[in-house]
């Protein structure tokens, strides 16, 4: 029997972090994390209790993030009125916030340069899943997770350094 309250306390922050790196909106990531648990609880109420609950939650999260990405694409099409909006006003007292946003943008850009599978494995590991759990979720062989992670980390660092170099050049 799964202690869902305990699982929530253990996993929710990891889920939010994982989802944030998928949808890039902290508020939305938090909503989605709760949505994940709501769905899981609903399934559990119907007698479907998974063997690996934590990995199962991340499966649901991956599906929700995929749906969210599609929705964002649709929404972008609707928000064309905002295109060409005036440049963002820079406030001197907001320099720290801007710097943080730049760091996040650079991390996001570097992550987006990874292959889908590499990125997924890296994010799942960072969210706290074990090698067997990542293998179960991605369909990779457990023995291939180390190699995939190594490649993903190397490419992430290279992409980030390339972006930084470009930024400095400008």
């Amino acid at each position, binding site marked *: 029997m799964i202690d869902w309250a305990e699982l929530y306390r253990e996993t929710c922050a990891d889920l939010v972090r994982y989802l944030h790196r998928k949808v890039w909106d902290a508020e939305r990531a938090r909503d989605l994390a709760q949505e994940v648990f709501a*769905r899981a609880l609903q399934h559990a109420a119907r007698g479907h209790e998974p063997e690996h609950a934590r990995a199962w939650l991340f499966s649901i999260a991956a599906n929700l993030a995929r749906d969210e990405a599609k929705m964002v694409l649709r929404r972008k099409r609707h*928000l064309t009125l*905002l295109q060409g909006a005036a440049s*963002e006003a820079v406030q001197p007292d907001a320099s720290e916030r801007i710097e943080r946003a730049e760091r996040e943008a650079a991390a996001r850009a570097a992550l987006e340069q990874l292959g889908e599978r590499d990125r997924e494995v890296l994010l799942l590991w960072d969210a706290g899943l*074990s090698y067997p759990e990542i293998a179960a979720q*991605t369909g990779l062989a*457990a023995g291939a997770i180390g190699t995939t*992670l190594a490649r993903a980390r190397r490419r992430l660092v290279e992409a980030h350094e390339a972006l930084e170099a470009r930024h400095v050049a400008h």
Partner: protein
Amino acid sequence: MWHIDEGTLHAYLDDRDRGPAAGALDAGLRERVAQHLSECDVCTASLRLAERQRARAADILLAATPVIETPPFEAVQPMVGTTPIRPIPFPLPRRTGPRRAWMPLAWAASLMLAVGAGWMASLMWQGGEVQRAALEQPASAAGSAADRADAGAPMSPAAGGVVLAPAAGAPRMAEGAARPAGEGSDLRRAEAPRQEAKEEVAHADRLAPVAALSEQAAGNRVADTGAENRRVTAEDRGVTAERPRQFVARDPARDAAVIGGAMARVNAAAAAAAPQQVLAESPALGFAARSAEGGYPGDADVAWKTVSREEAERLLGAPLYLLAGAPISEIAAAPQASPALVRVRQRAEEGQIELVQWRAATGQAVGADVEKGVADAAAQKSAVDVAREARSQVVAPPAAPASAVVQPRLGRARDGGSVLSIPAATHPVILKAPPGINPALLITRIRQEG
């Protein structure tokens, strides 16, 4: 001499950091790797490189980590039962076929596209015929322009007013079609310039087939407007073309795809403990979202004076809508405007935002109030304004179906900031975000306390 591959080195490091729970290496392999590392300088150097890469990757990911505040588990439980069940495969199904197995069917899609384009072109051509007929009858065209405005269609930005999408276009259109001819002739006395009427009819005709097709494709005809309304006339097209497009969604409070849907569910739990109304939860999101394109009440030339929160809420007849977590820098009101406007300025992390709100008048069409207020302030009433104003006084707000959500429409304020109209539960609100910030992203944070 053999060397350890990069993947095994990373697995070794992961295993070392998280322990056996990581499941990265089995015990036997871990021992063999450790033994080899103690003997091989090449692999030890590779291990150092892998460690650096690992640490650097973790730093990069850390930069993409938000401040995480997780709500209590109790907030999730009320959501259970409101979430639509979907089968969740576990593990995720592997792809079995070739990645682009659908490619051979691309020709069929191209064929369908060509047929569809031809169909649309023929409809456009027919529209052109009607347009020519309309231009040959300028008097009736002028009447149709007035009727179109009368039917609650948005005003063109050039008219200098707020563009407001009707709460539910179809019922209004039905009303417009069923209205006696005498009322239409009254409106014609507004004497709209003949040339302007021609241009509007022509514009409407160009848009009409597209609007009709998009609605048909969406399967979202809100109300059957009757055979009379389906007549292909210049008037009818004028109404149809300006009707805001709608898309069908499930109950907004249960649909994660709707902005704020999940937030609404979370706050439903909190609402039980403290009386707090959440904007996103309100069925107002199921009504029309109005556009402030071409005008913004905050830009209107009205005299604002600072008031207390109590005074502002008295003017509104309801608690203020506020952006949660953002300190209030000013509450001002323009009580002499009609209707009285309240403006709240807050210092959000994104910059200063404004929430202009006003009391919704009973029995008036949604949007009539602010439209009137801004139009009065601008003191530029065209014939179209007069016609629309006349109608807003006599038509009760149509009952919008709870399942229909109108696409939010955004506009621009005078200073370049973006504005978003929100038909909230108790009264209408226009949110203005600073330049460069999308106000739609702030909508889930708007709440009503008290």
